[in-house]
């Protein structure tokens, strides 16, 4: 028996045998299948995002224009616009001025005719006259927002072909509308009211200014609290903290806080800030404080990452020429890490801007018709305003909600864009 018999060499594989070819084919086919499934998954994800954005844009773009009706109002000479009781008379003025355009309007139809304009038309007119007292006794030409059904009709969401009893605008109103339209009194300019009006029960007057100001205050408070505290905590944990159980405890804590559901922070704000400390409900100050506690873990984590990215040689060089540890930190490491920290801070604030649930619990979903004047005034925020509108039954609020979402997404895109810009321009590669 020879050694060669003991170690029989395997027969050379015939790679082109039909069996092998089939095996290889099926293996490659499996490979391609996996690839296609992956492409399918990605396409589904991207497709869903596309559907989301398109549906929101399609339902929201209409709210960026607002149907306005230009009417000549005849202001009686004996009216006092500063008197709060005059609004009843202004209501008559509005109805009569509209009726004067059509000769065949009966008294019983006056109400239906006035409903072409927003319900608040008398107040808009009164405020306009009060601002210009010289107009008393003259004829004022003013463009007034149309009521929601008229607005919907003009934008084509309510169509003529629908039977009269199934739409919110009557045949008579459509006829009046057509007459006004033929005279060129109907226009649909850009809806500045969406940005400069506060909330309203009437969709044609509802705007985001209160929500934008409220969100701004809340984010300001959030930034002022979470930015310095986050940096200080991160610097301590990254550069100064001794490695012991206490430090471990803090780190575990921060990681867990980052994953606590946001609504739990709302419960904390409600129980501690509102009930225990008695801070006012719905205030941007409390909202900002809750958001700050939520953002803090993110802030600490990004700051630590930015500090880690500064090479140790910088620290060693500074220590070598006699700087104290604190001087190394404040004079060298922090300034070098600042672009990274700022980028993270902006992204953290963008997250806070979209946060809704905790704000609901501390009452920032109230119906408030004027922007907050300070940190303690009741206010809404952008996401809670969107939630309020999404819950409103009026048809016009669907478009407003989508428009509000588009505005919110716009703010988020700007903030993230600034963050990306900062990252690309300022961040240094070592």
């Amino acid at each position, binding site marked *: 028996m020879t050694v060669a018999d003991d170690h029989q060499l395997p027969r050379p594989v015939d790679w082109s045998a039909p069996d092998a070819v089939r095996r290889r084919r099926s293996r490659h086919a*499996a*490979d391609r*299948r*996996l690839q296609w499934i*992956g492409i*399918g*998954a*990605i396409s589904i*994800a*991207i497709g869903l*995002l596309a*559907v*989301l954005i398109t*549906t*929101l844009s399609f339902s929201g773009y209409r709210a960026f224009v607002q149907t306005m009706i230009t009417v000549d109002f005849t202001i009686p000479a004996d009216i006092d616009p500063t008197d709060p009781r005059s609004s009843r008379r202004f209501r008559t003025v509005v109805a009569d001025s509209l009726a004067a355009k059509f000769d065949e309007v009966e008294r019983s139809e006056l109400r239906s005719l006035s409903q072409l304009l927003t319900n608040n038309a008398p107040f808009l007119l009164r405020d306009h006259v009060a601002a210009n007292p010289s107009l008393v006794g003259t004829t004022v030409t003013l463009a007034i927002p149309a009521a929601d059904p008229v607005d919907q009709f003009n934008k084509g969401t309510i169509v003529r072909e629908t039977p009269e009893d199934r739409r919110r605008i009557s045949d008579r109103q459509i006829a009046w509308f057509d007459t006004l339209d033929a005279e060129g009194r109907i226009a649909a300019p850009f809806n500045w009211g969406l940005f400069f009006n506060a909330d309203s029960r009437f969709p044609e007057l509802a705007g985001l200014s209160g929500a934008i100001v409220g969100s701004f205050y809340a984010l300001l408070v959030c930034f002022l609290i979470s930015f*310095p505290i986050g940096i*200080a*905590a991160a610097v*301590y*944990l990254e550069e100064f903290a001794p490695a012991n159980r206490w430090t471990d405890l*803090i780190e575990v*804590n*921060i*990681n867990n*806080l980052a*994953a*606590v*559901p*946001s*609504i*739990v*922070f709302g*419960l*904390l704000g409600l129980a*501690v800030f509102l*009930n*225990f*400390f008695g801070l006012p*409900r719905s205030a941007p100050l409390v909202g900002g404080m809750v958001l700050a506690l939520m953002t*803090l873990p993110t802030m*600490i984590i990004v700051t630590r990452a930015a500090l880690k990215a500064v090479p140790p040689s910088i620290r060693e060089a500074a220590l070598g020429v006699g700087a104290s*540890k*604190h001087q190394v930190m404040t004079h060298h490491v922090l300034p070098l890490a600042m672009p990274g920290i700022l980028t993270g801070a902006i992204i953290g604030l963008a*997250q806070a*801007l*979209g946060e*809704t*649930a905790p704000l*609901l*619990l501390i*009452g920032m979903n109230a119906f408030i018709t004027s922007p907050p004047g300070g940190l303690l005034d009741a206010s809404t925020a952008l*996401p809670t305003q*969107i*939630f309020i509108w*999404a819950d409103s039954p009026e048809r016009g609020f*669907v478009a407003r909600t*989508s428009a509000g*979402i588009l505005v*919110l997404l716009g703010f988020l895109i700007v903030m*993230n864009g600034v963050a990306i810009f900062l990252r690309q321009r300022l961040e240094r590669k070592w």
Partner: protein
Amino acid sequence: MAGLTFLLIVALTAIAYVVGRATGSRILARHGVAMHSLPGYHGAFVAAWVGIPALVLVLLWLLLQGTVVDNLIIGSIPDLPDDVGEVQLILSEIKNVAAGRIFSEPTAEIEAAAARYAAWSTIARWAMVVVVLALMLVALFIARSQLSHRYRARNNFELVLSGLMIACSVVAIATTIGIVASLVFEASRFFALVPITDFLFGLKWEPQIALREDQIAGAGAFGAVPVFAGTLLVAAIAMLVATPIGLLTAIYLGEFASDTVRAVVKPIMEILAGVPTVVYGFFAVLTVAPAMRQAGGLIGIGVSPNSALAAGAVMGIMIIPFISSLSDDALNAVPRAMRDGSLALGATPGETMIRVLLPAALPGIVGGILLGVSRAIGETMIVLMAAGLIARLTANPLDSVTTVTVQIVTLLIGDTEFDSPKTLAAFALGLVLFIVTLGLNVVALRVVRKYREQYD
């Protein structure tokens, strides 16, 4: 007034810095390099001792002033009713009268109390300004008198700085303690009204009815099992949507995609992750739920307008980027040698992925999925807008169910009476939510870490 006080603190702190630095400069001129610290550190030392105690004092004062004045007012009113709710009503009426918001003719007692309230509030505010000012001036003189050429101003200032940094890192612990304390405290008040076993194992959840007097003791009205079941159903649907799509996305991006595809898809995933949840909620209401109803109508199945399926599916979309990025991390953490070895033996990229990388990365992926589950359970806005309000014990995804987070919000919105079991039930639910998500996170992080250490 608070704003004025803060301005005052900032101004005096700045002055303190200037004073301290000027003193330091004089010392420097006299002693030259024999001086221990630079003049700037003398200024910073004085400023820190003037500003920080004053700031702490003002914050404490502002937080406690309201409670103290309220208690003083309550104590000053003769023959008070026993009921806590009525006392609160009287107190809020007094405050309204003091603020000039008079709805009905107040009694003479209330008016007198309102006058006292206004006077005491003013006194308290001015007292704060005076006390803070005095504190800052005393601190300024004491701190300045310490300065000399031997004085270690820099070391002492750095000590203050270290103390501040430690205080800031303790905020995270304070937050956790605050969360646990408030949840446990309010939940224990709830469990004093409703037995904990009824809450955890009861099958009937009708908190709205319980507002009526005769229903408070009604057994079973606060049985949270249907709420938990609804939460699990929605979360399960979400994970069924998110896990395959997220995981396959990570697999494709990790093994097959070209750099261009990766450069396009990654930002898109980030956008999906950055969309606020309220937007997803409205998307569910506006598009997904009606579409599902129509689809159900076409094949003759009745779909509830706020079905668990719609809420869960949209929540799944929200979690896709989360799963995909965590799976991506896990796959990337597998050592390159394993992958190269598999490819060198002749395995196709797909076989390498399925037979080598995926099993090796499995613990990390499971950890990511657990984190996703915890997120799905804690998510509020999507279910609040798209899921139902009525608790129903069902496993049918086309039915309407409610979740823990939805119940928390609906129980607390608009209502701040803190002694009814209805509002307290929200905190009990919150406690359960907190414990469950915390448990999931701890387990997930442990799984991920343990597995990472194997390859490091």
